[in-house]
């Protein structure tokens, strides 16, 4: 499904400010796999997702998606295969447009014609999708997204990202800016949609418990490389203690990450 081969991303190469955000990173994901990615601030998690989505191009390496080499395919073309939810609720939705208009934009991904966008037929179909979220959004379809709460916005963003059955779903700490109650709700919705549509998913998180609870595979990203890869049975039996053990085995002293365990 996804094959990232030897990805390197260097910012400001050849200058004193050079940053190697990703350093020869490789991973292969099979269809339907749910990968959680854990790592501290600045480890390169967002950069990794940016490379897969095509927001950034790698300095070196190759990305194959669904059997196609997409390494140099621009983001808006790759978007046909990629669904994405960002860290900030504001980033995934157009705030000045209505809930229905936002959903319509997600509905006909890439194919924007001269048909009227929000029709009654579409609205009733979308209403059903919204009802499943349990956020009360089905009653607010004609309201601007700016009037919604962060949780509602992020719920809408998750629905928009999954509406067209992407080949791969990318979640970038998408609950990090929400309060615990909303974060839990959005995680529930995410899990529900991913399972229902059997989506291949990469979820970046700051939160060890989240990374352990969700998904069937976990990788740890540290200074631009994967330093641990836990799969199958081992992933099922993973606990915070075992994860910490993995850290110390690899001599990763990372106060910030260890703090998030509690």
């Amino acid at each position, binding site marked *: 499904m996804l094959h990232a081969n030897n990805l390197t991303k260097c910012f400001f190469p050849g200058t004193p400010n050079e940053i190697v955000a990703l350093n020869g990173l490789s991973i292969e994901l099979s269809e339907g796999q749910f990968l959680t990615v854990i790592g501290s601030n600045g480890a390169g998690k967002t950069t990794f997702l940016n490379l897969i989505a095509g927001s950034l191009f790698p300095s070196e390496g190759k990305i194959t998606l669904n059997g196609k080499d997409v390494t140099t395919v621009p983001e808006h073309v790759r978007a046909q295969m990629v669904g994405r939810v960002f860290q900030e609720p504001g980033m*995934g939705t157009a*705030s000045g447009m209505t809930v229905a208009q936002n959903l319509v934009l997600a509905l*006909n991904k*890439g194919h924007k014609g*001269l*048909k009227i966008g929000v029709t009654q037929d579409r609205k009733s179909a979308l209403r059903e999708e919204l009802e499943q979220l349990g956020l009360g959004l089905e009653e607010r379809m004609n309201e601007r997204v700016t009037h919604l709460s962060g949780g509602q916005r992020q719920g809408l963003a998750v629905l928009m990202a999954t509406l067209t059955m992407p080949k791969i779903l990318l979640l970038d700490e998408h609950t990090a800016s929400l309060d615990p109650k909303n974060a839990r709700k959005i995680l529930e919705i995410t899990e529900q949609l991913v399972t229902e549509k059997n989506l291949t998913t990469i979820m970046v998180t700051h939160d060890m418990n989240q990374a352990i609870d969700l998904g069937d595979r976990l990788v740890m990203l540290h200074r631009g490389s994967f330093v641990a890869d836990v799969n199958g049975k081992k992933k099922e039996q993973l606990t915070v203690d075992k994860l910490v053990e993995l850290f110390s085995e690899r001599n990763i002293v990372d106060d910030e990450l260890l703090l998030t365990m509690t």
Partner: protein
Amino acid sequence: MSLFINAIEQGLVYGLMALGVLITFRVLDFPDLTVDGSFTMGAGITAALTVAGWNPYLALLLGILGGMAAGTFTGILSTKLNILNLLSGILTMTLLYSVNLRIMGRPNIPLLGQTTILDQFNSLLSGVGLGDYSNLIFFGIVLIALKALIDLFFNTELGLALRATGDNEQMIVAQGVNTDVMKVLGLAISNGLVAFSGGLVAQYSGFADVGMGIGMIIAGLASVIVGETLLPTKSFMWVTTGVVTGSIIYRAAIMLALRYGYNLGFKASDLKLITALIVIVALATPHVREKLNFKIGEKANLSETE
């Protein structure tokens, strides 16, 4: 009375230009200064071709296409050459000054003695005794038709994608839209409308002048802001209605200022000063309202609640 009618006529014909400004400044969030040049271009092409004996409709159509080409050029400067939006527009505006002079062949083309579209329409309406109102009716029909088309377009999938490009570029790229194409499209439509306005103004005032576009962007902005301040912005249709209303009010204000300004010692050459002052006042108004907590509803925002 005739002063009143003149103000409405001008409000309507310049309203097309203001709708163009709305599309760039507000919908696309692209402060496009091409307007001063594309307005003159529309007027210049229409006048030059009319004088050369072309069919006046064809002349106007080519004027509109000229404006669309100018907008496209600005769009390419911005998206393909990564030149700052503001600078892209200024560059096009600047080069259009020379291009317009080339097209016109001289700085001023009088249309006296030429049969324009407005003349044709006037003889039509004179037959039924409405000759005095022919310009008003013609501009009204054109503006209402184009406003309806714009309202419709911005509710299509493509139109929604264009609005989203101005609202949240990252989001709409992730939804598979090439925002470069959207920006170029928006700029082309906008400057096509501006050139349309220019072509009609040339026929209305009986000449095209290479300097007639100077300060046009400010007049357009003033109309947009006045409209947003006075009318609700709860849907796209309301916003465009506001812009048209704003354009009429703005023209009326200019006329009153010119007419009664004489008593205060103003001259016709002070028009640009008055224009800029009106815009400053209009720009200040929402802030004044905000500061005084008089804010009614949402901040003016190009958005929708149906």
